[in-house]
C-alpha cells in the first residue's frame, strides 16, 4: 500500500464551547473499507464531514489523495469532486428526475457534454439496480431506492473516495439490505470507503478495519473480528452490548458519555 488515500492528523473540532473532536489521527489506505462506529454524539459524523470540509476543523490537518483539504488556499470544489458523499437523509434534488439528479452535477461541475453525462448516468443507475426508475422523481421512490440513487449520483462523478454518513439509519428495516448490497459491491470493486454506521453485520463482513469512537476520540481500532468480536476496551464492550441486544440494556445514569465530554 502506497500513501494513504485519507489521512487525518491531530484533528480537533469544536462547536462553541462543545469540543466534539479532540485529537483524531486516522489513515485509510487505497481500496480500504473503514467503518466508524460509536454512540451518538461521539463525533463520528463530524469526523466524516471534516474529511470533505463540510465542517471546518478547528485544528489539525486532513489529506485526501495527497492534497491537503485543510489548506486555506486549496480549491475545495476540485477536491470534493474526488470525494463522493452519501447522506443519512439522501438529499436528492427533488425538483429533478432521477436521471437529471445524475446528469446535472456532471454537466455543471465536470463540464461533460449531454451524451456523455447521460451514458455515465445510465451506467451508474444500472450499477445500483435502478435503471427502470430513470425517469421517476425522487418523491415517488422508497427510501432505499432514493439512497441508491444518491450513491449512483456520487459515483457518476468518478470519485476516488466515498464517504457514507449513516446511509441506512433513515430507512425502514426491510429496505436496508438493498443499500448495503450496493455498498458491498462497491467495496469489492476496490473503492476506498469510510462508512459511519450502526450496521454491525455489514462492518463485520465488509470492513477491512473498524474504528470505535467515543467522546471525540478513537478508543480502539483494528480488524472487525477483533473490535466487534473481542473488544479490548470496556467502553467498546458496553456500546456493543447495548447495540447488539438493546432489549437487555439497563437504564443507567448518564455517566460514561458525560464523563468523556465533560472533563479534559
Amino acid at each position, binding site marked *: 500500500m502506497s500513501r494513504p488515500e485519507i489521512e487525518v492528523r491531530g484533528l480537533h473540532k469544536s462547536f462553541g464551547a462543545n469540543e466534539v473532536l479532540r485529537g483524531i489521527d486516522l489513515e485509510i489506505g487505497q481500496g480500504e473499507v473503514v467503518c466508524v462506529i460509536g454512540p451518538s454524539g461521539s463525533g463520528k459524523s463530524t469526523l466524516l464531514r471534516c474529511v470533505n470540509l463540510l465542517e471546518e476543523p478547528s485544528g489539525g490537518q486532513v489529506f485526501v489523495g495527497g492534497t491537503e483539504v485543510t489548506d486555506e488556499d486549496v480549491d475545495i*470544489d476540485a477536491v*470534493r469532486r474526488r470525494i463522493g458523499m452519501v*447522506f443519512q*437523509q439522501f*438529499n436528492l434534488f427533488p*425538483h429533478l428526475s432521477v436521471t437529471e439528479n445524475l446528469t446535472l452535477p456532471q454537466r455543471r461541475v465536470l463540464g461533460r457534454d449531454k451524451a456523455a453525462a447521460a451514458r455515465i448516468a445510465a451506467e451508474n443507475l444500472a450499477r445500483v439496480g435502478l435503471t427502470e426508475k430513470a425517469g421517476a422523481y425522487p418523491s415517488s421512490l422508497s427510501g432505499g431506492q432514493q439512497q441508491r440513487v444518491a450513491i449512483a*449520483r456520487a459515483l457518476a*462523478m468518478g470519485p476516488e473516495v466515498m464517504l457514507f454518513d449513516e446511509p441506512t439509519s433513515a430507512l425502514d428495516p426491510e429496505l436496508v439490505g438493498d443499500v448495503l448490497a450496493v455498498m458491498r459491491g462497491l467495496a469489492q470493486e476496490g473503492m476506498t470507503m469510510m462508512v459511519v454506521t450502526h450496521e454491525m453485520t455489514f462492518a463485520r463482513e465488509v470492513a477491512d478495519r473498524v474504528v470505535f469512537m467515543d467522546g471525540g476520540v478513537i478508543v480502539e481500532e483494528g480488524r472487525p473480528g477483533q473490535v466487534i468480536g473481542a473488544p479490548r476496551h470496556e467502553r467498546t464492550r458496553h456500546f456493543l452490548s447495548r447495540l447488539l441486544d438493546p432489549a437487555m440494556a439497563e437504564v443507567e445514569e448518564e455517566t460514561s458519555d458525560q464523563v468523556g465530554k465533560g472533563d479534559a
Partner: protein
Amino acid sequence: MTDTDAKLQPKKKGLTRRQKRTLSRGVQYAVFLAAVIAFAVTADWDRLQNQFAQADIAKQMFPDVITLALKNTVLYTVSGFVVGLVLGMVVALMRLSSVGPYRWLAGVYIEIFRGLPALLIFIFVGVAVPLAFPGTEIPGGTYGKVAIALGLVSAAYMAETIRAGIQAVPKGQMEAARSLGFSPAKAMVSIIVPQAFRIILPPLTNELVLLFKDSSLVLFLGVTLEERELSKYGRDLASTTANSTPILVAGLCYLLVTVPLSFVVRRMESKSQEAIR
C-alpha cells in the same frame, strides 16, 4: 319573524349551545337583510343607473378600453414585475451574503422602499430625478419610468419573499450540491433557486396582483393619450362625459385580470399544501 327572534334573545335563559348558535346566526342574517332592504328602498335607482351604467357611454369606450388602456396596464405591470424580480433577486442574495456590507446595504434598501408610499416613489422617479439630473433620460420614456418606479417598490417586497424561499430549502440540499463539487454560486443557481421559486410562486403571483393595481399610479406621471392605462383612461372619460360609467367599466377590467389571478394563487397554495402532506 326576524324581530321576534331578536326580542327573545336577551331574556330567555337555559338555551342549549346549538340553539344559541342558531339564534345568533339568525340575528346576523336579519341585520344583513335589513341593511340590503334599506339600501334598495332609499337608493335612487334611476339616478344610480344614469350615473354608473349608461350603456351608450360604456359602448363608446370599446375597443379602446381594452386595446389601449388594459394593454398599457398589463404592459406597465409586467415590465415593473420583471425589473422588480431581477432587482429583488439581487437584493435577496445580498441579504443572504456572508459579506457584511452587502447584507447591510440590502437591509437598508428593503426598509426604505417598504416604508415609503408607492406614490412617493412614482413622483420621485417621474419628477425629482429628471430635475436633479438634467440631461439624463430614463430609457423608454414613460414606460421606462413606470418600470423603474414599480420595480423599485416591488423589489423590496420580492427580495424578502425570495429570501424566505431560499431559506425554506433544506440545508441538506446545499450540502449535497457542495459535496458534489458545486461552487456556492453554481449550487445557488442550479439547485437552490429553482426549488425556492416553487415555494414562492403563490406569494410572487400575489405581488403581481398588487403591482397590477399599483400601476394606476401612472396617473401622477403625466402621460400622453397613447400611454394612458385603465385608471387614467377611465377618469379622463368620466370627466369628459360627466358620468361615472367609465370608472365602473375600468374597475371591471381590473377585476377581469385580478380575480382569475387570485384564483390561480389559491389553487397553487392548496396544491403546495398537498405536496407537504
